[in-house]
C-alpha cells in the first residue's frame, strides 16, 4: 500500500478491495471442466436446433441489437381461448392472460418484438429465472412468442435476448426487486382480473 493510499481513506479502502479481490485462487481443473461443458453443450445443442446458433447466422452487434430490442419491444396478447383477461395492475401494458381454466394457474401468452434477435428466453420467478426452460419461438407475425402456465399471484419476469441482454418491457409495471439497475416486469395472475385490450407498439 502506497503512502498516498495510507493517508487517503477511500484510496486505502480501494487498495484493500484490490487485495481482497486478488486473494482467492480458482479451483484446480476448473478450466478443463469448462471446456468439457462447452463440448457437452455443443453436442447437446447440435441435437436441438432451437438452442444452437449455426455458423451461418449473420453477425449482429450486441449493442445495436440491444438498442433495437429496446425500441421495438412490447408485450402483447394472443387470444387463445374463450376469454381474454388481463391480470396485471398495469392493464395497458399489453400483457394479456388468456384464461383457460379457473384454477390456481393460468396459461399466459408472452409476445415480444425483437426482429434482430436470434434467441429470446422468458425468465421469471415462476420458472426459477431459468433461461433454458422457456425459449420463445417466432410466430407468423415475426414476433417472439411463448405460452407459459403461470401460478396465480404476483410474479416478476423479464426477457433475455441472445443469452446476455436482460430486457424488462417498459409497457408492464416494473418490479420492486430492481436490485441491479436492470429491471424486471411484473404480472399479477389471478381471479378478479378485468378484460383488457392487447395494444401493440
Amino acid at each position, binding site marked *: 500500500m502506497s503512502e498516498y493510499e495510507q493517508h487517503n481513506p477511500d484510496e486505502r479502502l480501494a487498495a484493500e478491495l484490490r487485495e*481482497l479481490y486478488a486473494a482467492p485462487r480458482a479451483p484446480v481443473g476448473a478450466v478443463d471442466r469448462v471446456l468439457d461443458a462447452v463440448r457437452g453443450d455443443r453436442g447437446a445443442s447440435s441435437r436441438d436446433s432451437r438452442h444452437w446458433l449455426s455458423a451461418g447466422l449473420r453477425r449482429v452487434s450486441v449493442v445495436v441489437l440491444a438498442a433495437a430490442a429496446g425500441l421495438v419491444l412490447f408485450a402483447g396478447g394472443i387470444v387463445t381461448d374463450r376469454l381474454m383477461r388481463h391480470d396485471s395492475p398495469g392493464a395497458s401494458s399489453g400483457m394479456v392472460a388468456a384464461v383457460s381454466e379457473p384454477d390456481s394457474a393460468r396459461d399466459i401468452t408472452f409476445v415480444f418484438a425483437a426482429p434482430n434477435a436470434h434467441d429470446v428466453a422468458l425468465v421469471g420467478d415462476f420458472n426459477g429465472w431459468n433461461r433454458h426452460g422457456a425459449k420463445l419461438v417466432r410466430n407468423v407475425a415475426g414476433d417472439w412468442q411463448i405460452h407459459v402456465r403461470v401460478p396465480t399471484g404476483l410474479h416478476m419476469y423479464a426477457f433475455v435476448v441472445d443469452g446476455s441482454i436482460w430486457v424488462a418491457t417498459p409497457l408492464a409495471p416494473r418490479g420492486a426487486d430492481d436490485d441491479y439497475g436492470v429491471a424486471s416486469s411484473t404480472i399479477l395472475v389471478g381471479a378478479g382480473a378485468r378484460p383488457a385490450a392487447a395494444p401493440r407498439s
Partner: protein
Amino acid sequence: METASLVGRAQNGDDDAFRELVLAHYDSCWRYARRALAEPSDAEDVVQEAFVRAHRALDRYVDRGHFRAWLFQILVNECRMSNRTSARRRRRFPELPEGHDVPDVAAPSPEPESERHAGLARALATLDPGQREAILLKYGEGLEYRDITRITGATESALKMRVKRGLETLRRTLGESRNIYE
C-alpha cells in the same frame, strides 16, 4: 496471441483458440463471481455457465476490442440470475442463513482469509447488489466506467453514485468494527 485473433479462430471452430480464451479470462471471471455471488460456492458453476453461453453466442460477437467486456456482460448476468435464485430460496426458507442455504459438499474449501480480508468480505456481501457489482468491476477488475457501463447497462453517472455510496457504506461498516475509517 492477441485476443482478436483468438476470437476469430474460435469463431471458426478452433477449439484450441477458445481454450486459450478461457485460460486467459477464467481467473478474473472466477474472482468476480466469488465476490459477487450470494452463494460463493456457486462461483465455479456460474462461471462455467457463462463460458458455455459465451461459446454459444461467439458467432454474434463483433470484435471491437471489447471481448473482455462482452464476456463480463454475460458473466454479470449469470451472477444476477444466480443471486435472484438464491434470494428466492431464502424467501422460501428464511431460517437458512445467507451463504449457507444449500450445503455444497462438492465445493472446494475456501481458502482461509485474514481477519482483515474476512471483515471486508463480510461488509462487501451486505452491500446493495448494484453497488457491490460496480465496486467489484471498478476496483477488483480495474475497469473504466465506460466499460462498466457496457457490462451493466447502467449509466456512468449512476455507476459513479453506486461506487461512492458503496464506499461510504463500506467505510461506515468497517469503521464500526475497526474504528479506523472514520
